[in-house]
């Protein structure tokens, strides 16, 4: 077997284009993924026409909020191009300099202050459907954030006013000359003392009614702050994970990228290696007693698995320069990569055993691998239950999903546990080796 292995490595070394692709591919993918994950997505260029007068404020309950603080929220989510008029904003969008424009109308402060009608922003879009979708979501998210910030400010001011009513205090900060206001909480006691000094009669009865009102108002205004908080944010989300992955999206993306690369390199190498024996007409010469068919399957499997294992490991290490990975789990990485490489190698050898030419083997390997990767990533609930069952069945008999789960468990400690995935991969290795052996019966 070692002579065949040596021969295949020599042939591989002489296939310079293939070696270059195999060497450059994981490096390029590692760099791309690393850069994509380590740098935030670029902010879209958006023209902003702020038609409000500088320093415009929204006045609520005697307090003033600067409108500038509201739209600074918008600016933080985009790359703003400041323009003076709506026409200039439209021109920027038309010329393609900006993907969208936001026009802040001059009456925004008055509308916000009135509390009777909603203030409105105008958004003008450009670009293709995808770009529009991205910009639209960014702006909608920014507007939602700005609205939330504004509503929190209003709530804070309202709460201050309620506190003043309840507890009393200094009114001079509201621009009112009287220096001290009696709080509702104190009012019943003050009224009680005054009532006690009055003789029985109509005047005393009327003051008692006022005292009851003060009692009632003090009790109910106390809960109005909670009511305001509820109105400002009616739904609050508390997340509880019952079942599923806990892997952050960026490290899961790393695992997906490494698994896909491992699969392509391994399946293509193994399939091509076996098909090359047929293409060179050497299979019959080898298997007439010089090398057993089982030996040939194992040799091609080891070659493909070995090469792809090293490349995938290099890729994982390369991505590790950009994304924080737990290197103390490296032993598990090696086990997952090795088991995945063996299963993919066995699949590749089985594909190669079915074909007569390297080109046909490569095409078949590619056509089979790509949908397998795609299917394995379809989440439950994204398709009809029956279709999802079919996808799960396909994912069980091909190694991609098991390899992905093994690597996810190894790198991220995700569930299911790695032992089950490793056993699954080894079982698939055995199955595809048997199929490859049967395929090689045809000399």
């Amino acid at each position, binding site marked *: 077997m070692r002579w065949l292995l040596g021969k295949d490595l020599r042939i591989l070394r002489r296939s310079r284009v293939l070696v270059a692709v195999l060497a450059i591919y994981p490096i390029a993918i590692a760099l791309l993924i690393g850069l994509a994950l380590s740098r935030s997505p670029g902010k879209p260029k958006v023209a902003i026409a702020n038609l409000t007068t500088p320093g415009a404020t929204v006045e609520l309950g005697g307090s003033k909020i600067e409108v500038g603080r509201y739209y600074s929220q918008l600016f933080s989510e985009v790359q703003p191009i400041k323009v003076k008029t709506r026409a200039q904003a439209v021109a920027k969008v038309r010329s393609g300099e900006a993907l969208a424009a936001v026009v802040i109308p001059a009456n925004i402060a008055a509308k916000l202050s009135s509390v009777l009608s909603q203030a409105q922003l105008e958004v003008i879009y450009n670009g293709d459907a995808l770009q529009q979708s991205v910009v639209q979501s960014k702006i909608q998210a920014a507007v939602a954030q700005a609205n939330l910030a504004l509503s929190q400010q209003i709530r804070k001011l309202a709460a201050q006013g309620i506190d003043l009513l309840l507890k009393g205090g200094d009114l001079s900060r509201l621009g009112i000359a009287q220096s001290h206001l009696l709080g509702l909480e104190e009012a019943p006691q003050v009224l009680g003392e005054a009532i006690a000094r009055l003789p029985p009669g109509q005047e005393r009865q009327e003051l008692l009614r006022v005292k009851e009102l003060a009692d009632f108002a003090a009790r109910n205004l106390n809960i109005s702050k909670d009511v305001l908080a509820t109105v400002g944010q009616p739904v609050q989300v508390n997340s509880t994970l019952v079942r599923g992955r806990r892997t952050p999206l960026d490290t899961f993306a790393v695992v997906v990228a490494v698994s896909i690369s491992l699969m392509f390199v391994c399946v293509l190498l193994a399939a091509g290696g076996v098909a090359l024996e047929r293409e060179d007409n050497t299979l019959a010469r080898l298997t007439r*007693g010089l090398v057993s068919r089982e030996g040939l399957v194992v040799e091609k499997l080891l070659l493909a698995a070995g090469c792809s294992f090293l490349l995938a490991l290099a890729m994982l290490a390369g991505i590790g320069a950009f994304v924080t990975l737990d290197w103390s789990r490296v032993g598990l990485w090696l086990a997952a990569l090795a088991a995945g490489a063996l299963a993919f190698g066995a699949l590749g050898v089985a594909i190669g055993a079915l074909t007569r030419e390297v080109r046909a083997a490569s095409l078949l390997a590619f056509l089979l691998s790509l949908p397998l990767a795609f299917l394995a990533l379809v989440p439950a609930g994204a398709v009809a239950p029956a279709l999802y069952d079919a996808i799960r069945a396909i994912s069980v008999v091909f190694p991609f999903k098991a390899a992905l789960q093994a690597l996810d468990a190894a790198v991220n400690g995700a569930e299911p546990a790695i032992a089950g995935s490793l056993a699954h991969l080894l079982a698939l290795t055995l199955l595809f080796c048997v199929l490859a052996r049967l395929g090689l019966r045809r000399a």
Partner: protein
Amino acid sequence: MSGETAVLSAQAVTRRYGERVAVSAVSFDVHAGELVALIGPNGAGKTTLLSVLAGVQSPDEGSVNGPAKARGVGWVPQQPAIYSKLTVAENFALWAHLERVADPKDAVRRMLEQTDLIDRADEQVGRLSGGNRQRVNIAVGLLSSPAVLLLDEPSAALDPIQRERLWQFVEHLAGQGTSVMFSTHNVAEVERNARRVLVLHEGRLLFDGSPEALMQAAGRVDGIDFEQAFVAFLAGAKV
């Protein structure tokens, strides 16, 4: 016959592909030093019979008895079965190791001399001409110094000069005691080089004897050559 000992023996060998019978109950012996030609029209079953004798395929019925199959029987398929990305010398070395030749280095040197490809030893086989590739292909079949050499249309890709050298080489092998069995469509080669002829038609062995005996079996008429006699024989067999 050049020797008395049967080094290769086919007993009622039958090989089927599905419903089609490619070789039907063929029996014959090959003796040491014999030079046997296997002829027949296209689809007669020549390649199938040679691959069964070489151990590439197993017979569905009957048996093949001969030397330890892989190393005792040299097999040279019609299409070169060598690695096009390896050099001539690397091919010889690899196959010598796989054949477990006692001294692979010596075998490589010997084959480079025999094929007259010493100057091109380091050239990749894929860059050689069809004729030179076939010389390497034949030489690989000889690496283990087999007692029996099976050649499937060995001269098909060779020019006249290369063909002449091939037959000199084959004659030399037979002279040293190697039994050689070859298939061909070139009937003139059979008349010139073979001591014995097997005629295969639709999987059945129709004739086993010397070229002269085939002429007689065809009903020798003055003026007709061996090829015409062979065609006449096949025509008579069909009737």
